[in-house]
């Protein structure tokens, strides 16, 4: 640039003019760090004359510049020929601090520095930041006022807020002790951890606190000796001491430290005074609430238990403005509704209320606002932070008119569990009602004083029919109109239940034809006491009728079967007798053969009739249990079978051991065994040389076991499951009614036993019979 200046003088003059008139400061430094050129702005910026600078080095004019950060940038540009841009805070020798936006570029002579004074901009930014934080501080303090009723907590919060929101380095608050001329620190924040905080700070003549006390005004000290509170190690450029008032008297000081000298400006001081005022107000409140608490403490003595109860309750408290803005929320709100303390700032209480509950609440609330001191009860859903709804119930009180409160105060508790239980209960109750009403049976319960507790619809309707009106819960169950005798009759049932008996009774309703009821009683217990009885009545009239009918039918059938068997057998026996006579009289062999055939058919018919009789007997007759000499019975049965023609040549083996006398129904056992043995004979295998029927068994405590096996024709596998069916007959020429094994199984089951078949075609058949020993 110098070259240009030399070679083009006129141009250079114009350029210099231009450069001089630029708003940007320009300085050109040569490789020896000497000023080559400086424009007017720059001269103004540094407050020096051109003569003072040109030809001199930077180090000469600004001692210590080598150690600054900006010089490092200049060096970089000078030696590495690299353009650098930076913002720089520059403290002039006269102490003035300025901010510059620097643009350093390599030039022929060395480097060229363009500088723009951005101090006003910087200051504005800084001011905005500070003001903003002071506003935050003030508003926080405002919040604290309503949040803290205790002095100590109020102070602690104010100190913390001053540092966190107000950008102060540290803060402390102390109460004035006028007598001893000092301050008793109450709270502090932001001091180094090691700082030993004194218990008492005496104010000495003319020090900042002394001045504050004398004037009642805030005091500022910049770079003073005000280290008293913090001990020797703590010193800050700025200390602002704010007086806090109670009833017009300075009662405390609020000391705020800043690491910036010029921290406070007029408008900021106004804000801080606001803080001081607000805190004073809060202090008034705190003192008031302290008095109130003292009064409450008095009350507590007489109502200690009641108070304890109240205080332990998890109720939530809120204060809201006329239009619903939440001014204060107790910590329990966080616990129940999940919102953090910070969240609650922005709330309008209507945002929390379930849309369905809003109209009612809004109506009630606007009504309340018209009545100072009035209150209303509410039950509504509030939105939990998670989005769920929590049922709450409580009271809203209008204290808008109350100085210092000016809010709608609400006390409420979480009744979600209660609601849930209520819902469940309601569901259970509806469910139960549906169940007990969906029956024609009568259901009711009675307490020990004979009063109806509850009843179902069927019961109510029945009462209407029987006694002409309903019995309502709480009314006596033994209606006066019943008459003494009937009342005593039913009363006796209830008394039995009250003594703990569970029982059922069949009752014929008097005055009602053929109306039978089965009434069951079941005591209701509460811990060890019986508090009543549940009753269940069932109309069993039709059941009874059916039973009677069935009995009649059965006995008719019995008589019928009996007379049939007799009437059928009588002619058969007559035929037999006549056949015997003919047989005696004739010598004709063909006649005798015919007689034998007729006899066979008569026998077959007779056996069938006997079987039907046995079947009827098995099904109808009750068991006639007696001791049975099994060995004797087995021999008797086998002997009676031996007269059957087909048994010729069959060898019978009987082996029985009576370990314990066997008891059962004799006739049934005989029928069962006769059937099995006669089958063994009937199905003998004519192709076998030594046909046999073997019977072995024993009787024990538990019962009888008999195995009857033969070497007859056997039963094909496919019929094993069928042989016990009624009227099933094996294919082939053998005569039979197909009822024998069916009856046998019926009998076995009736005698608490079983009958099992093992058989192979061509080999033989084995029946295993188990019968229970019915002795007792």
């Amino acid at each position: 640039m110098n070259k240009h200046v030399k070679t083009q003088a006129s141009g250079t003059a114009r350029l210099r003019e231009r450069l001089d008139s630029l708003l940007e400061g320009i300085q050109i430094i040569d490789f020896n760090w000497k000023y080559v050129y400086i424009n007017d702005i720059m001269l103004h910026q540094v407050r020096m004359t051109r003569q003072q600078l040109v030809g001199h080095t930077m180090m000469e004019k600004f001692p210590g510049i080598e150690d600054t950060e900006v010089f490092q940038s200049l060096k970089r540009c000078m030696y590495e020929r690299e353009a650098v841009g930076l913002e720089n805070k520059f403290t002039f020798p006269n102490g003035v601090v300025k901010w510059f936006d620097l643009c350093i570029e390599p030039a022929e002579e060395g480097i060229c520095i363009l500088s723009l004074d951005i101090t006003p901009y910087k200051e504005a930014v800084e001011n905005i930041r500070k003001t903003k934080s002071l506003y935050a501080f003030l508003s926080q303090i405002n919040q604290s006022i309503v949040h803290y009723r205790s002095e100590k907590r109020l102070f602690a919060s104010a100190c913390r807020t001053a540092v966190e929101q107000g950008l102060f380095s540290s803060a402390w608050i102390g109460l004035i002790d006028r007598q001893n001329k000092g301050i008793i620190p109450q709270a502090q924040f932001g001091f180094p951890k090691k700082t030993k905080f004194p218990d008492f700070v005496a104010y000495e003549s003319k020090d900042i606190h002394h001045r504050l006390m004398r004037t009642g005004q805030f005091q500022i000290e910049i770079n003073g000796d005000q280290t008293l509170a913090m001990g020797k190690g703590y010193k800050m450029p700025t200390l602002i001491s704010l007086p806090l008032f109670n009833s017009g008297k300075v009662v405390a000081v609020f000391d705020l430290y800043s690491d910036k000298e010029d921290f406070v400006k007029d408008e900021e001081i106004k804000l801080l005074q606001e803080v001081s005022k607000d805190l004073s107000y809060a202090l008034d409140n705190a003192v008031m609430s302290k008095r109130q608490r003292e009064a409450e403490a008095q009350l507590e003595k007489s109502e200690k238990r009641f108070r304890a109860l109240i205080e332990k309750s998890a109720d939530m408290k809120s204060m809201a403005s006329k239009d619903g803005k939440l001014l204060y929320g107790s910590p329990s709100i966080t616990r129940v509704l999940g919102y953090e303390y910070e969240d609650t700032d922005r709330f309008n209480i209507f945002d929390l209320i379930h849309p369905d509950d809003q109209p009612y609440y809004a109506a009630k609330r606007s009504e309340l606002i018209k009545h100072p001191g009035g209150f209303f009860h509410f039950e509504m859903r509030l939105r939990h932070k998670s989005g769920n709804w929590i049922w709450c119930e409580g009271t809203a009180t209008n204290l808008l008119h109350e100085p210092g409160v000016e809010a709608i105060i609400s006390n409420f508790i979480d009744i979600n569990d209660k609601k849930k239980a209520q819902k469940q209960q309601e569901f259970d109750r509806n469910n139960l009602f549906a169940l007990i009403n969906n029956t024609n049976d009568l259901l009711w319960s009675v307490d020990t004083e004979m009063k109806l507790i509850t009843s179902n619809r069927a019961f109510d309707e029945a009462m209407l029919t029987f006694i002409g009106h309903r019995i309502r819960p709480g009314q006596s169950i033994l209606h006066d109109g019943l008459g003494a005798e009937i009342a005593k009759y039913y009363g006796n049932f209830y008394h039995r239940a009250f003594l703990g008996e569970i029982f059922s009774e069949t009752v014929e309703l008097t005055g009602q034809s053929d109306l039978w009821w089965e009434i069951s009683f079941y005591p209701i217990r509460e811990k060890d006491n019986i508090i009543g009885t549940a009753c269940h009545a069932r109309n069993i009239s039709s059941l009874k009728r059916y039973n009677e009918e069935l009995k009649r039918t059965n006995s008719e059938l019995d008589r019928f079967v009996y007379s049939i068997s007799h009437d059928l057998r009588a002619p058969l026996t007559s035929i037999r007798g006549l056949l015997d006579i003919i047989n005696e009289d004739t010598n004709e062999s063909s006649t005798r053969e015919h007689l034998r055939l007729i006899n066979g058919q008569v026998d077959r018919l007779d056996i069938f009739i006997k079987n039907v009789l046995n079947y009827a007997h098995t099904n109808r007759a009750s068991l006639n249990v007696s001791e049975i000499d099994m060995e004797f019975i087995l021999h008797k049965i086998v002997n009676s079978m031996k007269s059957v023609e087909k048994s010729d040549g069959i060898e019978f083996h009987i082996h029985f051991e009576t370990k314990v006398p066997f008891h059962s129904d004799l006739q049934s056992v005989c029928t069962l065994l006769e059937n099995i043995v006669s089958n063994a004979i009937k199905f003998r295998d004519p192709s076998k040389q030594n046909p046999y029927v073997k019977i072995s068994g024993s009787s024990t405590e538990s019962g009888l076991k008999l195995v009857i096996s033969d070497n007859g024709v056997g039963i094909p596998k496919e019929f094993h499951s069928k042989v016990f069916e009624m009227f099933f007959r094996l294919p082939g020429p053998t005569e039979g009614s197909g009822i024998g094994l069916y009856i046998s199984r019926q009998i076995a089951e009736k005698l608490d036993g079983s009958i099992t078949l093992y058989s192979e075609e061509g080999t033989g058949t084995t029946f295993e019979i188990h019968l229970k020993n019915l002795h007792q």
Partner: protein
Amino acid sequence: MKNENPIFEVVMVIDDNPIDLYVATRLIKKMELADKLLEFSSAQKALDYLRDNQDDSHAWPALMLVDIYMPGMSGFEFMAAYDKFPEDLKKKCRIFIISSSIDNTDIQKAENDPNVLSFQEKPVTPEFLSSIK
């Protein structure tokens, strides 16, 4: 066969069924069991006969076959009335209940009667008659 059998002086058969009565009396006659055979189709008539002949030891039966189910007086009712006769008269007579019933109750009732020797299922057979001692 008939030579082996003892001869009863008087034999009484009570049965309302004419065929059964015929069969029984026919066999008794054929086997020559009785000197005198009394046939009654009614228990009441038989009872009347016994009452009328209490004093005539030759008219008193030594063997009686009594059916159970008869119109009017049944065999059991007859036996109940019979029980009222003097012991020495009853001692002289052997009584069998004969019936086509195989009902256990009937059988038990018959066998439990001290005046009855046993229950006999119908028909009356030569084997049965010859077994009577």
